[in-house]
């Protein structure tokens, strides 16, 4: 367990360090906490000379919307464009027995010999659709080494908040005819995604209607920036290149340092709450005060450093 060495390997874009790095960031022992901090310090903006280069993409949608199939095709398209890809598939399954079946739904087709592709299933956080602290840390670590880091989650509704915080670009995947996403957007329950993906475009009219309805809703909400893309993975596949372009376009228009700084601060606060609960939050003067205080900190500080700073402030 040598976090600094693993972090240095990731900074050098050594993709073979990914499995061991993930084993470390998922480790909950007290001994691992310091090593995780050391790992993340190695990939902090100050060490990288800027923000981690990866495009962190959140992909979310209801079960059965075709996310795995879509990701198989999208990952292949990214690989064709010469980009390395890491996928963090967050599993929502019941934790009743403490165990979980991972990968069952997230089987993404990939060439086993391709070192430029990395897939890891991770457990979900405590809240429905929430991210476990390990997933945020994993995304930050992998973002130093890979060109694209995908965080895949299940859900439609309020559950995207965590992903939106951790990702540069959020794509919501819907299948035609379900209408859920449209209703949630109209009702203001769901945050506006950066890209809306309609799968199963091979269904023809019903898919076209879904695209039209979603575009209409975006116009009505004056969210013209949200791209709506229809894709089909049934041969002949279609729309995948267009989707990759739409994701790129969003990322290019983004103020990356601001977004990442924001993500680290919110991540640190989430870690703090996970560790110290409401009582800890009260010691900081409440969530709002904590956020205000975080906004005044050095923008380049990595998440564990921010967490330590919060703990110091709370007298913990």
């Amino acid at each position, binding site marked *: 367990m040598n976090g600094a060495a693993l972090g240095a390997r990731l900074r050098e874009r050594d993709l*073979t360090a*990914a*499995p061991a790095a*993930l*084993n470390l960031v*998922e*480790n*909950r*022992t007290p*001994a*691992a906490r310091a090593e995780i901090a050391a790992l993340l310090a190695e990939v902090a903006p100050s060490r990288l000379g800027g923000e981690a280069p990866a495009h962190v993409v959140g992909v979310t949608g209801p079960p059965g919307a075709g996310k795995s199939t879509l990701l198989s095709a999208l990952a292949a398209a990214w690989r064709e464009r010469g980009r390395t890809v890491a996928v963090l598939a967050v599993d929502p*399954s*019941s934790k*009743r*027995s*403490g*165990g*979980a*079946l*991972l*990968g*069952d*739904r997230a*089987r993404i*087709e990939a060439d*086993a*010999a391709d070192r430029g592709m*990395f*897939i*890891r*299933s991770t*457990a979900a956080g405590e809240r429905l659709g929430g991210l476990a602290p390990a997933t945020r840390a994993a995304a930050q670590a992998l973002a130093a080494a890979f060109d694209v880091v995908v965080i895949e989650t299940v859900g439609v509704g309020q559950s995207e908040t965590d992903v939106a915080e951790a990702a540069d670009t959020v794509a919501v995947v819907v299948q035609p005819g379900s209408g859920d996403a449209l209703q949630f957007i109209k009702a203001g329950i769901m945050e506006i995604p950066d890209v809306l993906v309609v799968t199963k475009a091979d269904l023809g009219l019903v898919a076209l209607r879904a695209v039209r309805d979603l575009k209409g809703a975006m116009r009505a909400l004056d969210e013209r920036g949200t791209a709506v893309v229809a894709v089909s*993975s*049934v*041969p002949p596949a279609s729309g995948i290149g267009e989707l990759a372009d739409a994701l790129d376009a969003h990322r290019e228009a983004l103020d990356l340092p601001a977004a990442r700084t924001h993500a680290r601060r919110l991540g640190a606060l989430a870690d703090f709450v996970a560790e110290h609960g409401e009582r800890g939050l009260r010691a900081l003067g409440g969530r709002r005060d904590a956020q205000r205080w975080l906004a005044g900190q050095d923008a380049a500080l990595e998440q564990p450093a921010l967490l330590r700073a919060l703990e110091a402030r709370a007298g913990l």
Partner: protein
Amino acid sequence: MSHRLPEPDRPWMMRTYAGHSTARKSNELSRGNLARGQTGLSIAFDLPTQTGYDADHELARGEVGKVGVPVAHKGDMHALLDGIPLDEMNTSMTINATAAWLLALYIVTAEENGIDAAVLQGTTQNDIIKEYLSRGTYAFPPAPSLRLIADMVAYTVEAVPRWNPVNICSYHLQEAGATPVQEIAYALSTAIAVLDEVRARVPEERMGAVFGRISFFVNAGVRFVEEHAKLRALGQLWDELGRERYGVQDPKHRRFRYGVQVNSLGLTESQPENNVQRIVLEALAVTLGRDARARAIQLPAWNEALGLPRPWDQQWSLRIQQVLAYETDLLEYPDIFEGSKVMEGLVAELAESARGEMARVAELGGAVEAVAYMKAALVDSHRERLGRIEAGELTLVGVNRYQETAPSPLTADAEGGILVVDPAVEQEAVDALEGWRATRDEAGVRSALEELARVAATHENVMPATIAAARAGATTGEWAQALRDAFGSYRAPTGVGEAAAPASTEAVAELRDEVARVGEALGRTPKILVGKPGLDGHSNGAEQIAVRARDIGMDVVYEGIRLTPAQIARSAVDEGVHVIGLSILSGSHRSLIPDVLDALRAAGGEDIPVVVGGIIPETDVEPLEAAGVAAVYTPKDFELTRIMGDVVALVAQRNGIAAAAA
């Protein structure tokens, strides 16, 4: 009605499920079986042939000639059927995803022997739904698979009128753990999906003939009274379906026709001689009552839970049928259950429950849409069954009761009383394939495959182009690849994700505490990858292990069937698992397990311990352990919780975690 028949009935068709190694060896086997009094052929194909890969494909490694005969092209089919009179023979082919192709090869072989397709008799299994649910040898997604089946039905009903194009299988559902009700309901729901699809392709007035050509392939377990009732219930519901849903007028067309292979699930590795009486009783289930008697029977061999049967083992099974048909008085009477209160009561009960379950499937949109639901239901039923065996509520003589046994002379020989396929047949098949490709008219093959691809993309019937490709000399892998390109690939649901959490036993609760303790020490939840390398699609065992591992609190990575050793190794490393469990039932463990270990070393996962389960002969255990496998489990290890206890202990030991205080 008299209590005697004026004439004894003619016996059912007697077959033995046979094929292995090469077309030539399998031809010898078939001829031997026919010489011993078998009256029909039943061909077992190897897994590459069943899933549409040639012997030189990566996924075919270790599987060529193992569980059946490899047939790559019409030359192989000629060798397989050499000297067998196709105009008289009734041939059953256990083939599904690639059924259209194997039927085409059969038709072309007959044609080149001067026999018209119109006289050919036989059956192609061709039930794709149960491949998704149980057997795993699918190749294409559901919609195009169903289209292939419907194309075959529409084609054969006119051009090969004596052929049964589809044998709807309840057999494999029972093997996957189905209750009698599930078996009836899911088989009939599958039949409805097929018939609805065909209805769009044939004139209304031909639906009676179509309905009459649909046959079934059923299972019979050792609870033979209820099993017989199940067959009567199937007959009743089938008749109902024909009348009410499809308006079939002719009662002959509505007759429930079925062939049978009796239960393998209940056959045991321990005291395997007991399987003989199980098989006899199961044969009674499908023959006792005349109103629901099988048209064709094949019986498994006593040593099926150990490995592949030898010719003598198969002869023994054939002799069971012959004694039943020719020595007993079974065939001299009308239906002996007519007027039986017990039988009528059982049939009514099963039929009613089955109607309810069929309605549930229909609500979900029919069998194709309900695959995930049915799969999860089967995984649950199977778990329930295993739980009852573990708890001793379901008696298996020689397994969970009366385990004390004298040494068996039946398994005393060097190979442990089974047939072992010479591993050299794989290379032979690869070489022969190369030779075939070198001597055929390549341009003719290309243009036939192009035509096939064109037809596949339209709504034209795919059979004529398939037959033309067979005639031109295309291979199984080429035919399937052309269709994979057109149809796309597919992974069936594993059913494990939906499996409900069970009422936990004390042993499970204890193990859960131990998993939590090991997890605390590790810093993260113990994680296991459950893998099925190769083409073997019999995933029931792997699924049960995956579900039990979750139930005791482990994180489980299970990605379904048909993975290469490299894919398994990569997943294990990327996912950071603490242990790998591999399941193989096809006999390919001798090459695939070492392949996985090699792949693990190449991927940097040499420290991850590997345990193996499946149909592993005793004689193979030591070589596997010598190759680096941490533990081997065979069918006699039926206590899943105990196995999982071993696995957790292994994880603790490999990670330097002290054993739990006693």
